[in-house]
């Protein structure tokens, strides 16, 4: 049976159909989960897609973390369910405390839509399980607040625990330690600024994003590979 992926939508989210399309093309089924819903029962994995949840009012993710669905997402994650936040989804996960650090405005204070090269830094996460470390992927970014930052202790912890999932080969936005994506301690929650769904079709110029999405679907299907401590 096809894996069921829940794609969480807040008012202002805009990449929900893109995320659904990308995982559907890889054989999964995908459904929208409304931010007002209190349950995510029945899903094998959740994606928090990009966009501007609640208009990014106050700051990205600051209001979305209070949407009813986030309690369900938090429970799902605590039970080991795979959760991936892309771009605005990453921002929401940091605001909700599911991932450490924060995303501040880009160095240069401008919005950036461009294709970057990122390097896979660990194969121990739901998004990179089975992907050789050092693999370089061409994946677009599309953000104003993508400049990852955290305090020195957190950075030391992320490095020590091998929780930096992706790094930019050429840092586009000022992120500390070139970080493009991180995971939680249990390695089932991953946030990343690049949009793998935008590199999922030869027509779009790159299919490198499918490496990550395929890894997600594979680790969902065979959970043991994903939660290697």
């Amino acid at each position, binding site marked *: 049976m096809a894996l069921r992926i829940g794609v969480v939508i807040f*008012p*202002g989210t*805009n*990449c929900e*159909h*893109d995320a659904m*399309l*990308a995982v559907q093309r890889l054989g999964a089924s995908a459904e929208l989960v409304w931010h007002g819903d209190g349950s995510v029962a029945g899903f094998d994995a959740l994606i928090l897609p990009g*966009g*501007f949840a*609640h*208009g*990014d*009012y106050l700051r990205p993710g600051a209001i979305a973390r209070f949407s009813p669905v986030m309690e369900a997402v938090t429970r799902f994650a605590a039970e080991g369910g795979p959760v991936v936040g892309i771009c605005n989804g990453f921002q929401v996960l940091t605001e909700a405390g599911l991932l450490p650090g924060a995303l501040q405005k880009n*160095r*240069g*204070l*401008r*919005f*950036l*839509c*461009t294709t970057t090269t990122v390097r896979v830094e660990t194969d121990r996460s739901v998004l990179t399980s089975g992907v050789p470390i050092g693999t370089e992927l061409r994946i*677009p970014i*599309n953000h*104003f607040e993508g400049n990852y930052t955290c305090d020195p202790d957190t950075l030391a912890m992320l490095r020590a625990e091998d929780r930096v999932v992706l790094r930019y080969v050429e840092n586009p936005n*000022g992120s500390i330690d070139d970080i493009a994506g991180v995971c939680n301690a249990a390695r089932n929650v991953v946030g990343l600024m690049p*949009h793998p*769904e*935008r590199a*999922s*079709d*030869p*027509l*779009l*110029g790159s299919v490198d994003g499918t490496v990550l999405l395929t890894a997600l679907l594979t680790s969902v299907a065979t959970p043991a590979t994903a939660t290697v401590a």
Partner: protein
Amino acid sequence: MDAGGEGSQDVSAGDDQLLHRALGVTDGERDEVEAILGRSPNHLELALFAVMWSEHCSYKSSRVHLKRLPTEAPHVLVGPGENAGVIDAGDGIAVAIRIESHNHPSAIEPHQGAATGVGGILRDIFTMGARPIAVMDPLFFGDPSEARQQWLIEGVVAGISGYGNSVGVPTVGGELTFDACYTQNPLVNVLCMGVLPTDRLVLGQASGVGNLAVLLGSSTGRDGIGGVSVLASAGFGGGSDAEDAAKRPSVQVGDPYEEKRLIEACLELLDAKLVVGIQDLGGAGLVCATSETAARGGVGMDVDVSAVPRREPGMAAYEVMTSESQERMLAIVTPADLAQVEDVCRRWEVRAAVVGRVTDAPVGTPGRLRIFDGFDGEVLGDVPAVALSEDAPLYHRPMARPGDHDARAADDPGALPAPADCGQDVLTLLTDPSWVYRQYDHQLFLNTAEGPGGDAAVLRLAAPGLPASERGLALTTDSNPLWCSIDPRAGTAATVAEAALNIACAGATPMAVVNCLNFGNPEHPEVMWQLSEAIDGMSEACLALDLPVIGGNVSLYNESFGADINPTPVIGALGLIERLTCRPPGVTLVDDATLVLLDASVGTTGGQRNPPSLGGSRWAVECRGHRHGTLCALDLTGHRRLVKFVSELVAEGVAGGDGVVSGIHDVSGGGLGVALAELSVRSGIGLQVAGVADHHELFTEAPSRVVVCTTRRNELVARAAEAGVGFRVLGTTGGDRIVVEGLVDLGVAEATESWRTRLPSLLDELAPATPV
């Protein structure tokens, strides 16, 4: 009866004789209003006529000319006059497209002016039932090395980026033009394209007596009062900063989050067939939406101003009716469906308020727009709806060919001395606009096969809720004010031709165009002559190329200090790709290939003079400051043949075949020299070209030419010959230098560096110091 009120602006005070003038209504127009009503208009009624009869809303100076444009073709579902033009793209899918200007608001407040320009045009598109899937922004500024221009550029681009990205519609292209004539009056045009299942097509009309007019979206405030009449329909008078600042409250403020929810709510209402008609509120606000929907439906409407949700206290009726507060729509709903409509809106957190009722229009009489203070309360105003939207005066304004036209034509740049080093002039003309488009999300919806920066953007014909299709769309905007200032008629025809050729370079068949006519003060006879000539040129080219004009916008009074801008007609062209399975080759080179120039410019009628003209070329203007002369001839018959040939050639590869085209670029601004250099810097591959006689041939902007990079030269030239398209083998690709024998010898790395850094080196200085 008093249209004024507490805290209202000073229109309520004062003298009837002067009131209409303060509102921008001429004495003659006021008399006409009185004749229509059979009595003196009250203040509110006069305010309604003032905005609806403004140049911006009524096209009163241009309508008599616009009638000359060809607008029909079998695939045109909706032509000009509606909120957007719509064509049938096949597979049960229709495409809606529109272009607009937001010039004056952007001159006053660049960020919000540009942002609300995007917001406004999106509403025009989803009003038709279409989901907006692409935006393009042609922008025109003064000298970018001046601080004030940098402020304008920064603000406009940030406004488009901030609104478009957030609302979730990709910005897939545009144009960036610098010329001193835009110093005080930048142009900010915005084009939007949307897609819809053909059977969801809706028109902005009211019907069904007793149906309700429901105002959706934002509350109504004092922002944008008189935007169309105060801002859009007058030039910048003395241009003093204080005067411009005083106009700032006439610029609306945008909220993309509100618009995003409004889009989703409206599309859901349309999908569920819960509305009988829908209309956006843009220029002239509620009065425009209510009078237009009523007039189109042949009905009347009663509006209760007291029911309109307001954002501030003490607003007068005329303010509520003419406010241009953003992110609002008017839906016509049956009473039975109201509860469901309210449910959908609640889910999307969109406000919905019943503010009007559709009323009967007795046979033989026009439906009336009546404004009430409470449906059981006082009648504040009562006018025939159709008089507001359709009875604006039509002006046959005086036209005159400029007195110095012949003298300017005779002053030919061909006599200018040849450059000592053509390569340096090529570098001067080479600018990478990615500083702009990297700030725009151009990839959302996973449709963008070819993004900004090329000849045309290419998108899949796909969106949630559409039938599956293998087709694709190509979209471009083109303008050439340098050509048009030399000869508005020939220049506009050549602009249409270039747009069609750009579409062909993407492997698409040109299907339709829209236009945004940015001109100076229509009270100047020379400007009216330019406008009339431009419309004739567009008409000629569109007829010859089978391109219906399905929509347009006219922006007049673009002037400052009494000087008019160069005539700036912007053409948006839409093309259809039968089968899009591979990315089009685009503006690029491959190694060890042949460069072939396809050339229909010599045409069948004797061709260009020798050497070809440099009149209106970027080289003459930007490298030598020479703006006179005559344009190269355009042979529309040959051009049509070229467009068809190129389109078919590229389409083979795009459809997944073994295409003969490895890279392609039309020759336009900057001529062959810039076209070759762009191919090289965009691919990082050098080239060696021979047989270009001199700087005339290198920089002429003779139309109907395309550079093709191919590894199958013999096949390409044989097919060109068979199709009756002229060609010439230019040279080969490879190496790390751009060489045009005897004229240009540049390192690819050097040219690339110059191309890439020109804009950022001017504009990034503005960025505040940032932590590293």
